[in-house]
């Protein structure tokens, strides 16, 4: 920041020097007055700026939770200067990006904080791709009137808005179901009707839904116990969105559309999310739109991998897995070998 002020400092010093030389060689009273003025202006400028910024209020807000690709994200920056002095040189440095398309361009927003006024500045971001939109404010700097000294104010803020993929106009394809132990036991569980017979109780594992905790037994046993239902054996859809290749956007659209279609039909399913950093999988139960979105958001944080062996990894780690629906780009690949997870 000091570097940015350097040209101004040099030019001001030159003005001062010219005045000084003029006053020395020509001994003009007006030049002497100007010299005096040049000498006292910088401290006055810095002192007044410091005084004004003590009362400055500022924030950046975004009211929407998520939006579909193609729509605008609106971030509002508000600046409230209750002082009687205007702050002409407020500079906000920010960056924004879709996590799948890194953009290192630094944006600087120069704003005036008008005296005794609150002003709103709206930053509209147009989106075209699904992914996690991240808006980061790095610094807020206030420079004095003569651009000699810059004050940095604490203002680190990150706003994350998930951008949903566009829903495709699809009809639900004939997805092969996973082989069940007993076809008759298969029940179509509607949303909110999860209280079928309990197969067993087991200890809590991170990722388990809170509503599956058996609170009474947990209280008795003094540890968290989770109910396991018999329908888990009937779960016959496992979606494996593969974050590979250059058709990730299409994959998101297909996954989102397929999930919505399944949920509309009343089907619940699991989604396997691959973590390339530790080569593990997380299995998420998708039982409603909320959990579908959560799975999508988790997916947004995963990096794209170059290898195309995610499915093999899954088979290797979970040999019993079967009936997996692989989503590669805009393709659905069905695992013919059905089996219970």
């Amino acid at each position, binding site marked *: 920041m000091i570097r940015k002020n350097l040209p101004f400092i040099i030019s001001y010093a030159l003005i001062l020097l010219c005045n000084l030389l003029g006053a020395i060689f020509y001994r003009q009273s007006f030049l002497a*007055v100007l010299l005096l*003025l040049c000498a006292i202006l910088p401290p006055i400028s810095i002192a007044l700026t410091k005084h004004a910024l003590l009362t400055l209020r500022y924030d950046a807000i975004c009211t929407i939770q998520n939006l579909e690709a193609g729509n605008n994200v609106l971030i509002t920056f508000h600046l409230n200067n209750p002082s009687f002095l205007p702050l002409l040189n407020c500079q906000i440095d920010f960056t924004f990006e879709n996590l799948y*398309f890194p953009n290192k361009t*630094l*944006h600087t927003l120069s704003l005036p904080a008008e005296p005794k006024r609150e002003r709103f500045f*709206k930053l509209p971001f147009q989106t075209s791709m699904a992914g996690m939109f991240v808006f980061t404010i790095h610094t807020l700097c206030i420079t004095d009137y003569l651009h000699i000294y810059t004050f940095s104010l604490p203002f680190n803020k990150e706003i994350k808005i998930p951008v949903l993929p566009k829903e495709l106009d699809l009809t639900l394809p004939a997805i092969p179901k996973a082989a069940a132990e007993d076809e008759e036991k298969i029940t179509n569980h509607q949303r909110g009707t999860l209280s079928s017979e309990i197969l067993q109780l087991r200890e809590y594992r991170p990722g388990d839904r809170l509503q599956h905790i058996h609170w009474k037994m947990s209280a008795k046993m003094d540890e968290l116990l989770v109910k396991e239902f018999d329908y888990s054996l009937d779960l016959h859809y496992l979606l494996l969105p593969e974050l590979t290749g250059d058709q990730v956007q299409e994959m998101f659209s297909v996954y989102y559309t397929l999930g919505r279609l399944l949920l509309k039909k009343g089907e619940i399913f699991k989604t396997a999310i691959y973590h390339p950093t530790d080569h593990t999988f997380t299995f998420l139960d998708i039982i409603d739109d909320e959990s579908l979105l959560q799975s999508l958001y988790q997916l947004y944080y995963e990096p794209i991998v170059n290898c195309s062996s995610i499915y093999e990894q899954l088979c290797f780690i979970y040999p019993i897995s079967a009936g997996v629906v692989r989503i590669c780009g805009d393709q659905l690949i069905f695992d013919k070998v059905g089996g219970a997870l």
Partner: protein
Amino acid sequence: MIANLFQFQAKKEARIRKEELNQFGVVLGDIQTDVIPNRFFICIIRGLLIFMASLGTIGGIASAFELPFNFLLVSLSLLIFSMYVAFLYYNRITFYIGYILLFVIFTFSAFLLYWYINSGYQAFWNCVFEQYSDYFHLSYYRESTEFITDRYITLSVTMAFIGFLYCILLNITISGYMNLTETFLLTFLPLQIPLYIDRIPQLPYLIMLLSVYIAVLILGRSTHFQLSYKQNKKQSFLCRRKKGEQQHSYLSSGISMLTISIYSVVFGTVFLLLTSVIFYSNFNGKYVSNVVKNTTDEYVKTYIQNGIFSFLNRYEATGGLSRGKLGGVSSITPDYETDLTVTFVPYSSDSIYLRAYTGMLYENNLFEHVYSDRYNDSYLPYVSQSSPLYGRMSVINMGADDVYNYYPYETFYTSLDAPGSPITGFTLDQAKDNYTEAFTLLSVPATDIDSEEALSSYEVLYLPYQEQMSYAHNSSITQDYEDSVYACYLQVPQNSSSLLDTLDTICEDAGLLSLAEDAANAKTDSEQQAARLAIISALKRYFAVNYDYTMAPGTTPRDYDFVDYFLSVQKRGYCAHFAASSALILRRIGIPTRYVEGYMITMSDVLNATVIDSNTDGWIAGKLTMPDSGLVEVDVTDASAHAWIEVYLDGYGWIPVDMTPPSDDNVLAGNELLGLLSGFFTTAPRNNVTEENIEIVLPAQDGSSFSTTFGFILRPLVTLFVCLILLFLCIALLVQCKKQHQVKVLLRNKNYSAALVLEYRTMLLRLKRYMQLPYDHPAVSDVIACLQSFIAPDLAPDLASQLPSLERILQKAAFSNSQISQADYINYSSLLHSLSRSFRAASKNKGLSHK
């Protein structure tokens, strides 16, 4: 074209954003704000800053020199003009049309008020020069003619006018760039005119300037004052793309501008009041002496005395002799210091030439003094056995070039025994034999000489030279001498064909060739003398008609021949130009001529001189034609340095001929023709003014008549009114052309529906102007019904029958997705025109007027 450029930029920006959107999946659009910058308010603040800066400068200078002017007129006109120029930056239309209008008004008013402005300008500089002259104790300063003597009016008009010029320039630096350096230079440099000689402007003007400096410094350093005419009304931010960075700056904050301007005025006032003691202290530059100040002082003095062109000289030209060097002096800049003090008794009204330097060989823009000949540049005086008049002259060299001695023509004795004596070849014994009576003059003691100041002093005896119609035979001239003259003084550079061509052309144009033939065919010396004198007269006439005298002709370009450039291109010059050129022209036609430099004592010098004694005993012998002459002591300054030629007459010797034409009144005519700027920046010499000129230009210059007193205000107002009407007509024409162009474009794109709707809208607007329609946005059916009822009696039956189908077609054109056919467009477009005509006729019949 400019509109296309902006469209191109907008398209480019849109293309970049599209690319970024595809590349990164997200892009920042146009940043919006809750308050769009108020252009009107911002222009007013800018206008106020411009007003303060221009009035601060103009008023500051005027107050420092105590110039009389109408403060109300000047400040009011500057305020209006400042606002006008500030609003040029309101939008693109005001910018382009406003500047054209500004140019027209400015030029018209400049022409109408030419003499007021010119006189005011000259009055201003006369005041300035006077004050500077007092400050520096200058013996001389330039003074210009004020054609209108009422300084209160002329200075008011001039100040307002120069203020306008300032407003235009300051508008660029303030509205355009908010640049302190440019604003400071524009205002501070003119203010140096009074400040340099410690004349302080009044405090309110300094406060205005200081406030503007502070405001522009602060506003310029922030980035929020760039609201330009280029941006559209709804644009609030300016985006700049750099490598890896994008800057978004809020364009303009009117409230901040106003606040800063107010605080600047308050701060400037308080600061100046607190520091005003400095102005009243002895902190001034009058007694400061250092290299920088002294050098600047010298330049200032030179400018005050000789003008700006004196700075262009390639070598020093402070009057005096140039020793034959020609072409490097742009402007003669005498210092008016005394070079020679000459004591003598004037014997006629003719000028007396004191000869010093002669040039023989002309080469490389130099008339070289060559000593190779045994006669040198000798001058053989005419030997008269019974001269009616002898003179004695005392010459004291106070500052002239001391290499030379300065003798009048026909000198036969000098008290110096120095080389270069004019009496070489004419021995002292011979002189004493011939001019016995003259030597008795030397019995009177010489004038006292201040030996500390004088470089040299000497006395001469001479025969007072006067131009004659014919010259008697000089017995001193020998054949050997004459041969030597012809061998040495006919040289013309043969290597410059351009120069030779120019000389030949001049000889032909001036009609010298036939006269030269006469001279060549002369049988006696007297015939030849007459022919040569006729040639000289012809050449003098030619110069007087075709060439101008000026002290500031400009330098000769480095690769040009001085004489050639003067004769063929420059056509204006001072004595050296005329002398050198005529020397070569006369040589070209076979007349021995030489270039001479020295000093010329004119009759006006004599009249201004000190008469030291009315008794002329010991200084003149013989009968004077001017009986009232006394002994005078003339201070010959370097301004009297002169160049002329000597022409050789067979049988008599050398005679001095001054070829320099007198300065005439062409300068004034030139000023009129050149118009405005020449009048501003040239100071017309006082001797250029004639009563005739003034009467032609100003029929009632006493200021008594109404037209003279108020004409300078009324005429620009009338002009402004006419300009506004013209502007209005132009805009109307442009709007009409734009509509027609739109229709043409739509037809070219086969969008017949839109074209018909456009024509319908035009007709609807006309209807709305003349008659009351049921609604603000009436339906087509309402309009047709209303129209039908209005023009029913005048409506042709065939037109009336088509109205229902017109309504149907218009509805289709306006609301249907399918286009109407070309035939429909042609039919119903002509129907609309017919209806429009019928409506106009009906409204005339009913006596309806414009709402």
